[in-house]
């Protein structure tokens, strides 16, 4: 309970972070209930293209005559779904590799870290682009797996350096003397100590995954099933949205949806940051 009380106390004193948390929550709610409150159809009705905002279409209509707001609401779920899945995979792989490597030390650590370094050096986005161009799958799980290929090494390195310093601490020594298994030491002793760092990285991993995911849809490389923000911008640009001011809402609404979410995530992590680092609060 004291955790929640701390959370609220910090959130109240840092209003930008509080807004960030509220906005993230709002997006989650929209992602869950979105498809139940409105529908986006792919039918084209050119007579209703580029309508100005009205009560039935608060953000106007796109070049096919569909309501832009409806499309954005429906498009929230696929983006969030893949983002969260990719972040879960990233965090799982990063934490396991980092903890095991840091705890084992010696040759095993050396080998694991050299492999991690290779993945860390290879530029992430190009490899994601190339893999998804070969795989071409619209399955969210496959997409999430591809997106996390390049994201785990950074976390693994950071977790490892924390595990290295925890390794020599008394409670680990005690657990080892009691004959605790590797999995027990990793999950029950080490994990809770890197938890806060991992929680923050989880949120940042979501923003990273969304960045790459929207990028893939924007470039038209990931196959699209249904509506999402990246595909919306892509089709807006293919419909010549860049050359006319009529389509400004159609082009800029999904962009705003992405920017607001990304910024909210970053501010949200600030609460967790000061929650877990009491030293930051004093400053």
């Amino acid at each position: 309970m004291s955790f929640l009380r701390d959370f609220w106390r910090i959130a109240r004193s840092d209003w930008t972070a509080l807004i960030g948390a509220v906005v993230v929550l709002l997006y989650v709610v929209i992602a869950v209930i979105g498809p139940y409150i409105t529908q986006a159809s792919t039918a084209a009705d050119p007579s209703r293209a580029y309508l100005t905002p009205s009560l039935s279409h608060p953000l106007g209509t796109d070049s096919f005559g569909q309501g832009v707001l409806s499309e954005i609401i429906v498009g929230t779920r696929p983006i969030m779904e893949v983002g969260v899945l990719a972040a879960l995979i990233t965090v799982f792989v990063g934490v396991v590799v980092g903890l095991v490597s840091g705890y084992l030390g010696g040759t095993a650590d050396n080998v694991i870290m050299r492999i991690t370094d290779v993945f860390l050096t290879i530029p992430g986005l190009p490899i994601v682009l190339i893999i998804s161009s070969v795989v071409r799958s619209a399955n969210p799980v496959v997409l999430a797996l591809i997106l996390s290929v390049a994201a785990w090494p950074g976390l693994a390195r950071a977790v490892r350096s924390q595990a290295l310093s925890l390794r020599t601490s008394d409670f680990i020594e005690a657990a080892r003397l009691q004959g605790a298994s590797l999995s027990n030491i990793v999950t029950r002793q080490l994990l809770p100590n890197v938890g806060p760092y991992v929680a923050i990285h989880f949120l940042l991993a979501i923003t990273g995954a969304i960045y790459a995911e929207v990028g893939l849809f924007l470039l038209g490389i990931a196959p699209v099933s249904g509506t999402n923000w990246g595909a919306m911008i892509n089709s807006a640009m293919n419909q010549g949205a860049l050359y006319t001011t009529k389509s400004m809402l159609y082009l800029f609404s999904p962009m705003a949806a992405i920017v607001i979410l990304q910024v909210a995530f970053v501010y949200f992590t600030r609460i967790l940051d000061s929650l877990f680092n009491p030293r930051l609060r004093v400053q």
Partner: protein
Amino acid sequence: MLRYVAKRLVMAFAIIYFVVSLSFFMIRLMPGSPMAALEGKLMQQGGMSPQEIRQRVEAVYGVTPNAPVWHQYVEYIRNAFHGNLGTSIANPGESVVHVIASAAPWTIFIVGTSLVISFILGIAIGALMAAFQNSAFSKVMTFVVSFLSAIPNYLVAIVLLYFLTDIYHYFPISGAYAVDVTPGFNAPFIASAIDHAILPITAFVITSFGAWALGMKGTAVSVLGAEYVRAAETRGLSPKRVAQSYVGRNSMLPQVTGLALSLGFLFGGSVFIEFYFSYPGLGYHLIEAINSRDYSVMMGCFLLITTAVIVANFLVDLLYPAIDPRIARPALRRQVAEPDEPVAVGGVQV
């Protein structure tokens, strides 16, 4: 120092080797692999004997299709290290090396310039934010900077493109230089090249200087509270000396480490930026190759992007001991705590 350099070199070659192997794997062993697909396509078109088809595939990918896989692998690796990456599928006759050699300078130009500008700008703003911690300037800047660094770079590119080239025609819409200038060391060409590079560089800088500023502010604030800084002040050293040698230098260390890590992100981001500004660099060709399923050009671009990151990383590694002598002398290193891994705020490593 020699051992340090040798270790980095071995690592660099290991990564290049890994990427070349990966590209072989992608081309040859993937289910429905590009190589099998090309063979099938040529077979369907008809009019070519199996012998001719094999020669064509061999020319494109640089491996003999029906040799044993390990044999193909050895051949592919040997060719790659001899600088033979096959020919383009979309434009037969054009070698992959030619495509990437003409594209690379442009990418290195805009990525390098953006990196230098955003690093210097970010460090300066971060240092000011740390020096005047509780001022309105610092608060406003923290807000602005975290906002900007959370925006995906391709969205900034699209917005710039929309307002500054399509609606108001302030900047050229595509290419690296105008058609009416002759490439070479002459004023019109240089002016045209800069004119074409301004928007891509702006898109980069807007989205990346913030991470440096936040990182610099964070470390500078913690260094300001360190005991050796207080000791230096008590000893009566001039504020300028304390700021430069004690606070400045120690706050820079994590930023230089971050430099190496951010390179991959920058080169990755250039894929989007080059694509939207139709800027003929490696990223642009990579996307074009992906869209036309030109796998040999695709892997060539990827190989060169990776190599550029490795070379730049290597340079940063060489630079590092000059700033932090403890790195090159492991005997001293044991006494200092392992430096914290920099956490990218907003500019997440992808």
